[in-house]
């Protein structure tokens, strides 16, 4: 199976990150791995976009971050969903479903 870079799905990167974080706090590296694993390696987050995206989302107030110690005793930054982020996630999920349903309808019609 080929790998899809999330670049074309730029708009969906926020959604993927928010959804991933809705399961609990996670660091950036974990977010990419999670998305990759759950999507059966189909979706591979472009790491160059991940951190800027996290930064923007933090500025928007959807997520917060804090530093914690890893098992190997390293400083690791964990990201966590905020209430505002949860609302944003719900909104983006609705939008995504609408769009995909619409696209599916068109595809089925022809």
């Amino acid at each position, binding site marked *: 199976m080929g790998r899809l870079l999330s670049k074309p799905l730029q708009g969906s990167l926020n959604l993927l990150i928010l959804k991933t974080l809705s399961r609990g706090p996670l660091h950036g*590296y974990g977010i990419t791995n999670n998305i990759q694993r759950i999507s059966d390696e189909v979706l591979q987050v472009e790491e*160059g976009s991940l*951190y800027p995206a996290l*930064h923007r989302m933090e*500025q928007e107030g959807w997520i917060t971050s804090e530093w914690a110690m890893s098992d190997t005793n*390293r*400083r690791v930054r964990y990201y966590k969903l905020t209430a505002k982020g949860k609302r944003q996630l719900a909104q983006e999920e609705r939008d995504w479903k609408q769009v995909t349903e619409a696209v599916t309808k068109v595809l089925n019609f022809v």
Partner: protein
Amino acid sequence: MGFLAKLKNTLGQSTVNRDASDELAWHLEQRTQEYVDQGMSPAQARAEAHKRLGSLALLQEDTTQSDVIVWLDTLRRDVVLALRMLRRAPTVTAVAVVSLALGIGANTVVFTLMKQVVLDYLPVPAPEQLLILHSQGLEEGHTSSNGMNSSFSYPLYRDLNAATSSVFEGILAFRGIDVSLTGHDAAETVHGYLVSGNFFRVLHVAPWRGRLISPSEDQTPGANPVAVLGYGLWMRDFGGDSRILNRTVLLNRRPYIVVGIAPPQFYGIDVSSRADLFVPMSMKEDVYPDQHPLNDRLDHWCGLIARLKPGVSPERAKAALDVIYPPLRDQDLAYIKTPSANFRAAFSRKRIEISAGGKGYAELRDQLSSPLKILMGMVGIVLLITVVNVANLLVARGVARQREMAIRLSVGAGKFALVRQLMIESFVLAFLGGGLGVAIAYGCTPPLLHLLNFDLSAASISAHPDWHVLLFAAAVTLAAGIGFGLLPAWQSARADVSTGLKAEGNLGNSGHSAWLRRGLVVGQVALSLVLVTAAFLFTRSLQTLKNIDVGFNTGQLVKFKVNPLQAGYSQQRIKSFGEELRQQLTTLPGVEGAAVATVPLLEGDDEGGSLTVEGAPVQSFQDDSRDNYNRNFVSPGYFTTMQIPIVAGRQFNASDVLPTSKVAVVNETFVKHYFPGKNPLGLHFGFGTGNVTLDQTIIGVVADSKHTSLRSPIMPFVYVPYLANDHLSELVYYVRIRSTEQSVMPGIRSLVRHLDASVPVNDLSSLTETIDASLFAQRSLGFLSIGFALLATLLAIVGLYGIMSYSVTRRYRELGIRMAVGATPQRVLMIVLRESALLGIAGVLCGLPCVFATVRYVRSSLYGVQPNDPAVYFSAAGLLIVIALMAGLVPAWNAAHIDPHTALRTE
């Protein structure tokens, strides 16, 4: 993101960066580990991890970038681009920057002085609560000017202070004094104040070291020889050594105990004359010797400043004074011997007026505030002209850049981006000019003040701009940038892609901007007319003042001052010293004669009061006049030395020394006013009113001459022999010379030193210098207005020349055709010159209403010239039209030498 968050992000950049790189480093490590686990070599794994994450540095920048950074970075790029564009047109840029620098520099210089002389408040807490009290109306007895043009007797001050505690926190009294101070070194003359005990308390000034003068020290005359030193004097003379506290210094050779030091920023009440010493008023007779004891109700000599109680309005204070003062006034009346009914009536109209005292009192402010306001207006106009000039240059350049703009628009730049770029170019230009201007102001103010003969050494005024002034300069720069940037930006925003691209070279669709530029040039000429007219008015005024007949010969006259009293001399010894010095001066080579006076001439000083004359009741000399006469004590030979003509009788001689022979010489105005139609010789009068002995006999009449200043009116004047005065302190010598001042002055100094080395020679200068110094304000206005007018005219020439050359280039083909069909070069020359002259005339016509509108503001600063003098307007207007013609000459010459063949082939 909120502004604060942006700012925090920008300021906290380094923390953010460190966090980000920590985070990314950890990410890379994890990823590398993962690849190694999958079987890659560590190096390969690291490379792959890096590749997947992208450039670490780039990423880092991206992650931490905030809006401010983006904004600053774009700005930096725009500024770099702007600088490149400005460098591409070096002449335009240089002309613009230099003219802006001159405009902004001139504004900064004038504002530096304006701020300190006119705008700044006293460096004391809550200065707005301070009020100056003025005694209005007739005075009886002895009045001496304290610079505030209004003075009170000490007993009246005490009464007022006690009676007004409902509205004032207190009233302070002060009087400027010059005393000789002997610390551990030689004696020097120091300016200071005699102050009431509550002086520092009313001003809310706290001691820097030790303590300040207290009310209890201002009770018994002569009982408290204490002094507070100014910070400047303390540093200068005592090296800031606190051991001087409670030690003794000599003031006028009498011992005083230094009890404290005033704080550094406190300069007294007058910013133009720093006070270095404070002595309680109870010590008046020591340091301010005149014939009047401290408690004399008829000696008016103190300046009063009151501090309002919190919450009390000046109006309420005035109302309170209107109730409190009349009984005190009537009490004063009781001390006046047998006043006439007229006098009683006039005296009962006396009142106390108040004025804002937060800025203290400054003679310099009185003298300079209207000239400074005028100068501020003039530099404002200069700046406006500069702005118009730069706008003109930029509009011209905008035409040349039409193609560039059109290309930018066609490749997708928004109009807003173009306008933004042009505005940024303007601001870059403005700040280059502003920076240079401030540098000019910083470097040029001291030499300029020196050139104008303005001595700052005695004043608390700095010639250097402070941060308020820099803020002002920055604001002016910003305003200028907006001013000259908007027009070209607006013009470029109108640019049309298709025509802009089609137009080859720089002669495209520019009819509109040509008119715009003509309008700007006309505006420049109009504004220049205002400045040229002002320069004409002020120089003529200065000339008139300089040519005023003062009534004595000011050429080849040298003056100096000595104060033997400060050296501890008795009255008798002062007189013998005075006469010996006078006689020895005449033996110096190059000296024709020497005379002594006690009041210096043309330096703003006067001494006078009321008098009674034989035969008739005295009418006030003038309604608004405080004095009925002015007086000077002079030596034998005074009139000969000054070359004041003797009209009748004789002058003083050596036998007029006995106190029993009370003789006086009066001027013609005195005779006209007090003895009209009579022969005054042998008639009598007496100083003071009421029951006075008419013991002064008139022995001579001299021609009128100016005394207090060039501009003050001639008063009835009385001369009395100085040898008959037992209250001498400072003596002013006038020396008539045959040779040059430089050759005589060293001789004078060594002569005085030879007579007594402890009597210093002060103010040795020629009368011409004295007059120049007294005309400081007028001279500044005269010289600076010429300077500004020249600058304005020069900028107008630049503008006119620019538009005319441009016009000729634009009409190249047309003029070529004209010449091809038979127009002579002279005809073409005239066509161009006519256009130039028309611009000049249009400018003058637009300028005249501006001149009429502004000229009334300068009326009070003019002397001997009418602001509506048609000759002034004609010369100013004529000058500008001639200048317009001259500016058009070179372009016209070029036009007349167009080769029709070339011109016709040009597209």
